[in-house]
């Protein structure tokens, strides 16, 4: 294959970059070793930062967050819920930090409004009675899956090719240029050579591995962050603990659920990024200081992502350090058509993509200006079904009531799954449980795939989209993937759910044998 730009990585940055370049008329191939948002882009809080979290540590990031979140609220409203946010402090918290906060905000130009304790409790009744200070800020939430799916969808309409499950395994150099990259399809074993004029490494936490293939070394640190998903939505707004960024200090609404996080654990290897029981307990204990209900509420799963940090040898902690992005122009390493953008914050993904696209266009001598700053992100079928709560609404509205439900937790009927299957096929993908789950709410409800797993596999067989015993392999992969997130929250209600899952799949059906 041949293209102008090869983008390695299909996360928020890679897909955002593809759209940015495509809108400037540049042909791209996006090579993703897994599926869309397989790394940190799909394992974060889904928080569109107002900037207030960084006022004490980084005014530049604060400003970027503020500008970008305002822009995205206008240009991609369908990916965003403008919830607003609160910063809250409790008895025992650092009172100096609390007192400084409004000043730091106004110094950075971040709108902030002090609330009476009583008013704060009225806005968010779940807040602890030990509340001593509350400030309203302009935080919002963003659906990272919808965002990336819409970005890649528009990029594809403008000529971008998406190759999922294609891992870069080597580069061919000629002189001081990369001439081609070899991709290995991890599902089929097929190799593809992509000749590209420019190569962008947007592999997130894996940028070091990719760069190493062409002899460029990047000094990276990895900070794992784990998050928890509750069964119900507990607050209307984003709730931030008013203290220096730390563990378990943000609760973000995620549609019909709430997401509590995060942690910061230095890890050496990227082989197995999983949330641990220690992390879960830490997050729950910390979170319960803000909202006591977090001690007793039901959690349906946990997940973990990795913050890729460029090692600056500084002493600041990872919660604060992860905030800046770096665009590495490898011309300085003697490779004039290679750049790395390790990714930073979801909130500023568009800005990072724009800066990277500027560099690439300058190299390609393409004069077209960036359009993602002004053009709204279209709302398409590709990202439609990631929205929590849409299933039940549409089930009534679009008369899906005349069709069987394949996922009862999220009320997804056969025509929803059909629509998701079509999107996958448009993205050159193979419809399977993981791909369908990524693009919809399937498997995300309390049952975590117990009922929908077997039904959707059966449906794929009935549609002729699965043959042989591939459905069993598919189910195993899907259930084991879900399990990684379930395992650390298996007590009380979710343990009962897990037991039922094992009764069905192992006790009755021998899937483990």
């Amino acid at each position, binding site marked *: 294959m041949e293209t102008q730009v090869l983008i390695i990585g299909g996360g928020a940055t890679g897909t955002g970059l593809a759209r940015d370049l495509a809108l400037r008329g540049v042909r791209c191939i996006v090579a993703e070793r897994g599926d869309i948002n397989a790394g940190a882009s799909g394992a974060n809080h889904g928080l569109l930062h107002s900037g207030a979290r960084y006022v004490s540590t980084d005014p530049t990031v604060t400003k970027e967050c503020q500008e970008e979140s305002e822009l995205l609220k206008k240009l991609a409203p369908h990916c965003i819920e403008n919830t607003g946010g609160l910063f809250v402090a409790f008895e025992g918290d650092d009172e100096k930090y609390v007192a400084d906060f409004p000043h730091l905000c106004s110094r950075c130009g971040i709108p902030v409004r002090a609330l009476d304790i009583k008013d704060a409790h009225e806005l968010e009744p779940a807040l602890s009675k030990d509340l001593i200070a509350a400030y309203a800020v302009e935080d919002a939430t963003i659906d990272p899956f919808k965002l990336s799916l819409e970005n890649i969808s528009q990029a594809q309409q403008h000529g971008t090719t998406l190759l999922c499950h294609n891992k870069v395994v080597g580069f061919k150099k000629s002189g001081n240029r990369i001439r081609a990259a070899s991709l290995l399809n991890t599902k089929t074993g097929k190799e593809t050579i992509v000749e590209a004029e420019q190569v962008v490494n947007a592999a997130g936490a894996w940028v070091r591995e990719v760069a190493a293939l062409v002899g460029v070394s990047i000094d990276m640190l990895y900070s794992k962050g784990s998050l928890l998903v509750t069964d119900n939505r507990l607050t209307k707004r984003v709730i931030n603990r008013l203290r220096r960024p730390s563990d378990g200090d943000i609760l973000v609404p995620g549609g019909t659920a709430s997401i509590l996080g995060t942690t910061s654990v230095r890890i050496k290897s990227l082989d197995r990024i999983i949330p641990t029981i220690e992390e879960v307990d830490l997050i729950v204990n910390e979170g319960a200081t803000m909202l006591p209900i977090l001690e007793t509420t039901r959690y349906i799963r946990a997940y973990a992502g990795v913050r890729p940090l460029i090692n600056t040898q500084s002493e600041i902690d990872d919660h604060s350090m992860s905030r800046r992005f770096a665009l590495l122009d490898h011309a300085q390493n003697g490779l004039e058509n290679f750049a790395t953008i390790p990714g930073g914050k979801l909130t500023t993904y568009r800005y990072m993509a724009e800066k990277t696209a500027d560099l690439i266009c300058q190299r390609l001598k393409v004069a077209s200006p960036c359009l993602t700053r002004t053009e709204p992100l279209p709302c398409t079928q590709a990202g439609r079904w990631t929205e929590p709560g849409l299933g039940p609404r549409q089930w009534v509205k679009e008369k899906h009531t005349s*069709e069987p*439900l394949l996922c009862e937790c999220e009320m997804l009927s056969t025509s929803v799954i059909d629509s998701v299957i079509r999107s996958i096929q448009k993205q050159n993908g193979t419809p399977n449980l993981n791909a369908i789950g990524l693009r919809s709410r399937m498997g995300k409800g309390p049952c975590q795939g117990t009922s929908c797993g077997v039904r959707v596999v*059966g449906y794929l067989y*009935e549609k002729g989209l699965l043959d042989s015993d591939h459905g069993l392999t598919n189910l195993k992969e899907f259930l084991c993937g879900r399990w990684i997130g379930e395992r650390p929250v298996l007590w009380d209600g979710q343990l009962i759910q897990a037991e039922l899952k094992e009764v069905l799949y192992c006790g009755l*059906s021998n899937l483990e044998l």
Partner: protein
Amino acid sequence: MSTSKAIECQLAIIGRGMAGMASAFYAARRGISTISIGITGGTIFASGFLDLMGVHPIEEKKSWYDPWAAIDDLIRDIPHHPYARVKKKDIRDAFEEMLSFLKEANLPYYRCKEHNIEMITPLGTVKRTYCVPHTMVNGVRALKKKCPCLIVGFRGLTDFSAHQIVATLQEKWPDLRATIISFPNADHVSELFPGEIMAQTLELSNNQKKLIRALSPHVKDAQAVGMPAILGMHRSQEIAGELEDKIGVPVFEIPTMPVSVPGLRLNDAFAQHLSLKGIKHYSQSRVLKVTNGPKGSFVLSIGNRKPEYTVRANGIILASGRFGGGGLYADRQRIRESLFDLPVCQPRDRNTWHCENFLDSRGHPANRAGLEVDDLFRPLDSTGQPAFERLFAVGSILAHQDWMRMKCGSGLAIATAYAAVNAFLRLNG
């Protein structure tokens, strides 16, 4: 002031799953005045198969043809497994008694006394089990012969994919094919569930005729026809026979994912029998509190939320199941027994409850947590002595077993219920 009504009985059975049902059954047959407490439980989740013993050691995935030899091996390796406390003769007698009752109850089961049989599951896997409902026996035979066979699915029945079964078994069974037909009177129904309604529909001969009409053109060279287990609630064998007569080849049922009709049939058969035997069932009640009565007896306060009855019983059989049944409860720190707070044998901490891989062949240690008992199935207190003279624990709440992985769920329920009821008889004098 207590307004609750008083009940006297010899034995109170807590739990209405397979182990609770079996306990009530054996108690009833032995003339013990018994009450049964608990909402309809585990049996409705049953596939219809009665497993005795299938896999050991689970980490080697060693599947046994001879369940009795498997039990020998099992209790040699895991001497605390509940099977180690029941004589093999008693396990045999327990099955004998149970199966002859099921036959009388018009729910006959099929088995080969000395070895396991193989049958297909709704996922298209093959499972070794000990007994299957008689309506499945033609499936066992067809699978053995790998004869040309048709698997029938119904439009709208998303819990059962005929094509999945056929594709998954393709390599082992090339002469298997699938077809989808409409279910009688279901043209305007979007979604079908493999439950009572479908089963009852097929009890009407008019609907059977419609099914036969829809099915017949697809039979062709098939020497057997399999379909989801919905052939009536109570006369399944007759209905299968009627179908066989008309389409000319053996018919068999395949279990569906729960709630499945074979589970409901078992539940109904027990419930009817127990009710005939005068065993009162408090289906909307749970045990709120138990206190000690005179001479080692118990006083149970039962009700939905507030106490409705006060039960005086000489003995209790705890058949309350695991987490789903409510017999065990886990918080973030530990696993507890819900009613008496009996000591629960369990892994050290939550980190060791579950493996990182769902399908880890060693099984999850939490699944072997449970109650330790003596040879009379009396749960032990922290000193290792029976916690109460006449408190017994049976079924999946027991420690040192992983019924899901060992494929011994029904056998465990039946054998331990049998043993506990007999032990109660002896101790009650």
